[in-house]
Structures are given as C-alpha cells and as structure tokens.
C-alpha cells in the first residue's frame, strides 16, 4: 500500500522535479554558511510580514465607521494605564468573540472600531476572570470599589487579588498633557484644548458640582461620567481612575447605531 502511494506521490511531483532539485540543492549549500542562512531566514520572514501585516495598514473595510466615537477622558486614560500596570489584562479579556454563548452572556460581540483608539489594545485571550469589554455601567461604582479593595467581600468564591493601595494612592496626573499628546501622535484625535486642559479635566471628573465640570462636558460630551467614583473627597485617587475606566468600557460606541449605519447585520 505504501509503495503504491509513494509511486503516486512521485508521479504527482514529477513535473516539479527540476524546480525541487534546484531549491533543495541551493538550500543544502546555504545551510553550510551560518550568516548566509540567517540572512535568508530574515528575507523569508520579511516577505511573510510584508504580505500579512503591511496590507492591514491600507485595508480599512474591516473597521466599521464610528464618527461619533467618544474618546477616553484624561482620568479614564489614567485608569487605563493603571489597568495595564496592575496586569488586569493577564486575567481579563476585553474581546467578546463572535460566538453565541459569549454574545448571550456579555452582549454584542466586540467591533474592531471599538478599540481603534486603544494604544495598546487590551483584547487579551486569558480569562481567569470574566470578559470586561462591556462591563461599563453593569455594576455600581460602590461595587467596583468594594470589589477592588477586597474581592471576597462581595464575591465569596473570587480568586482575584485585592488592590487596596488603589484607594490610598493619588492618581498620577503630572504628565497627563504629554500622555494625551503622545496618543495624538499615534492617531487618537485629541484636540489642542483637550491636551491643554488634561489635568483640569481629570480633576473635574470626580467633582460633579465643581466649576470645571462644564469644561469637561464641553470637551468630551454629555454622556461623560462625572462622579466621585471612590466616594472619597478630594483629588482623584487611582481607585477613581480605574473605576472611571471600567465604567466606560463598551460605552465609547453605540453598537446598535453602528450596525445600521454600516449596513451590517446584528
């Protein structure tokens, strides 16, 4: 049986024999020169990269249009940096996949445009905890604070670590304007006013009755969450920042309107 199959294989490749021999002989020779081999590997990998990766910068039909997409406020951006610093993404994904059970549990699957301003994106693939792509508004601020402070106070069976220090540390706002400026360099459309007022806007977001709240709404929209997220008076803590960030997840784009506009099916 094997003999017969081998004969079939040989007959199938017969027309390409000369080509194979040239390639194999060339390769056999190349293998003897380590530098030459390394160089050839780089060229082969480079071709793969050029074919697979380069077109992603020019293909835009895979990303939906969302002209009204909200930007992260400065405080939410600080929260996002804390989310990255504490490694939340190593246990929580932010990507609801196109699978029925995930759509049933967490809501509409994640669209590409929803993370167009995420640098870096935090889709993740490890789910020790639940997906967080649409956690914004699902639970109360007080719950998030209690849960981050000591998860087992509210969810007895949780294995999540406690993040108590977030409630004690003030959010680092020093270089906030520069951070937004950097994000603008990589394509997030922050305006000059947003960059200039970054620190003021971060302070305003935890003080709904303050004088600066109006400016924040003007720059980031009516739907901006302006609350004292951690319930503590004074300047924003890291807890304020990360809860502000968690409460905006999935809220930057209205997925329902997105689908009718781009003519896709829900």
């Amino acid at each position, binding site marked *: 049986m094997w003999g017969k199959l081998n004969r079939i294989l040989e007959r199938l490749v017969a027309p390409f024999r000369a080509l194979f021999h040239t390639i194999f002989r060339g390769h056999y020779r190349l293998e003897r020169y380590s530098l030459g081999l390394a160089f050839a590997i780089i060229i082969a990998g480079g071709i793969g990269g050029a074919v697979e990766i380069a*077109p992603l910068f020019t293909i835009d*039909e895979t990303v939906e249009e969302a002209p009204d997409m909200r930007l992260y406020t400065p405080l939410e951006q600080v929260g996002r940096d804390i989310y990255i610093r504490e490694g939340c993404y190593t246990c929580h994904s932010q990507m609801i996949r196109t699978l029925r059970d995930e759509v049933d549990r967490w809501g509409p699957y994640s669209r590409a445009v929803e993370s167009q301003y995420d640098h870096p994106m935090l889709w993740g693939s490890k789910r020790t905890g639940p997906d967080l792509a649409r956690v914004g508004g699902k639970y109360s601020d007080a719950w998030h604070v209690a849960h981050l402070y000591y998860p087992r106070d509210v969810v*007895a069976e949780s294995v999540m670590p406690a993040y108590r220090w977030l409630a004690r540390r003030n959010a680092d706002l020093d270089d906030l304007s520069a951070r937004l400026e950097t994000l603008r360099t990589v394509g997030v459309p922050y305006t000059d006013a947003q960059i200039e007022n970054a620190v003021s806007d971060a302070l305003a977001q935890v003080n709904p009755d303050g004088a600066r709240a109006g400016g924040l709404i003007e720059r980031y929209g009516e739907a901006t969450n302006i609350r004292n997220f951690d319930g503590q008076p004074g300047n924003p803590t890291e807890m304020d920042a990360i809860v502000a960030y968690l409460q905006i997840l999935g809220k930057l784009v209205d997925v329902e309107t997105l689908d009718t506009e781009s003519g896709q099916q829900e």
Partner: protein
Amino acid sequence: MSVKERDPLTGHQTTGHEWNGITELNTRVPRAIWWFIGITHVWALIMWLLLPAWPLITTYTKGLLGIDQTQLVAAEVEAGDRYRAHWVARFDAESLDEIRADETLMEIVRGAAPALWGDNCAVCHATGGTGGPGFPNLVDAAWIWGGSDEAVLETLRVGINSQHPETRFGQMLAFGETGILSRDEVRTVASYVQSLSGLADPPAEVVEPGAALFAENCTSCHGESGEGMTELGAPNLTDDAWIYGGESATLFETIHDGRQGWMPAWEGRLTGAERKMLALYVLDILPEGE
C-alpha cells in the same frame, strides 16, 4: 568537500565532516514528512480558495464559501432565540402570577435564572440573595422600594439612581456634611434611631431631643414612626434589616455623610422575559433556600 561519500553500513551519504575518523550520516528525510508537507500544502491551497485569506491593497479575498463570522453568530443567536421562542413569548405576555401557576414555566425559571442571577446580580446581592454592606438583602422581609411583583419588576427595569432616564431616585441627605445637624446632633439622632429597632436603650435625656430632631429632619421620608416609605425608597428603621449597618459608627457615617445607593438599570442589558425570570427567582425561588 567530499559530500558524495557513502557510509558502507547504511548506504546513506555522510555530511562530509569528519572528526578523528568519526563521520556524520546525512540521513534522508523520511517519506512520512514529505507526505505531511505535501498534504498540508494542498490543504492550504483549498482553504485559500474557500475562506477569506489573502490581503490585497485595500481589500482581501473573500473566499468562495462567503463565510463571515458576524453573520454566522447572528444566525446562531437567531436559532437560539427560535429554540426559546415558545416560552419567551409566554413570559413576555403573562403576569408573574400566571407564570407562577404554570409548573412548566417555573421549571424553566429554576433552570435558567441561576445563570442570569450569577452573572448579573450575585456580585452585589450574593449568590443566596443575602446581600452585604451597601447591597440590600433580597431574601428577608424588608423591601426598600416595595416587594410587590410590579415594584420588583420596575426596580429591575429602571434601576435606582442609575443612568436610565426613568430611574428610581433616592438619596439620604448628608445631614452633617451640609451643616443641617451638628456632630452631636447626629450622634443623638443616631442613638434615637437605634432605639426604634431595639438595638439600644438610650436614656430619656437622649431619646427626647433625638425624637425631636427625628421629627424635624427625618419624618418626611422615613415617616412619623420611622417605618419608611417604599415610594421614596426610604428604608424602615424599626426592623432589624440594615443596608449599611445599624452600629453607632455606621449610623453616624450614614447620617453625617449621606448615602446614595446605585442599582444598575437592566433594561437594554436583559430582555423583559429575563427580568421576569429574575423577579420570580428573587421573590419565589431564593426565599425557598432560606
């Protein structure tokens, strides 16, 4: 370079390298590997044709099968909805009492509600519905916004102090923070409130001014006797149910700094049938486990 040299024992070529008379065999790649490489290449060619595969400059090859995951999942969700349609329609149409009377529908609640509860409600109200500090116990007799079918369904729909336009709104004023009461007065009224439910038995010189302060500041929401008003979401202070706690320090904090709980609105996130299931789970099934 003597590449062509053959090993006399195996008949294989050697690599041509030699170390003190030891040479290295250049064994042929086994046929099975060639088969593997051949088959996977053919497989790749077929898949390139059938599935979305090759990036072009502004678009990509869509594949002969025209498969699009977003449409696949939409079809799957639709199929799931069809599968449930016969009872979802009944949940939509019937009142909670009518559903209670039908054991087959209640079996569905028993099957589906624990998963809904676990993912959406249990994080605050606990798996058994017993709540915790700041998150009300739903299996005791006390209801802040009312425990009737309609009240529970409405709370589930619009939430409390939520972002829903029709949200229930309730707020315990910060009597100390805003300067309405001095710290001493807050302490006095806290002791009086403790006496209402028998938590403490303060002397008459505390009870009397406490009662006066209570009548002046608290009765408009909590009622003359402190039994609360469900239409305002003002809790009953005479029972032994506490959202934040009945200890002196907690009561001081509550009266001094105020409270404003937040129950998310579930309209939009959960369907009407799902909210009815959760109402039945809270009102009928969870208390059974008590």
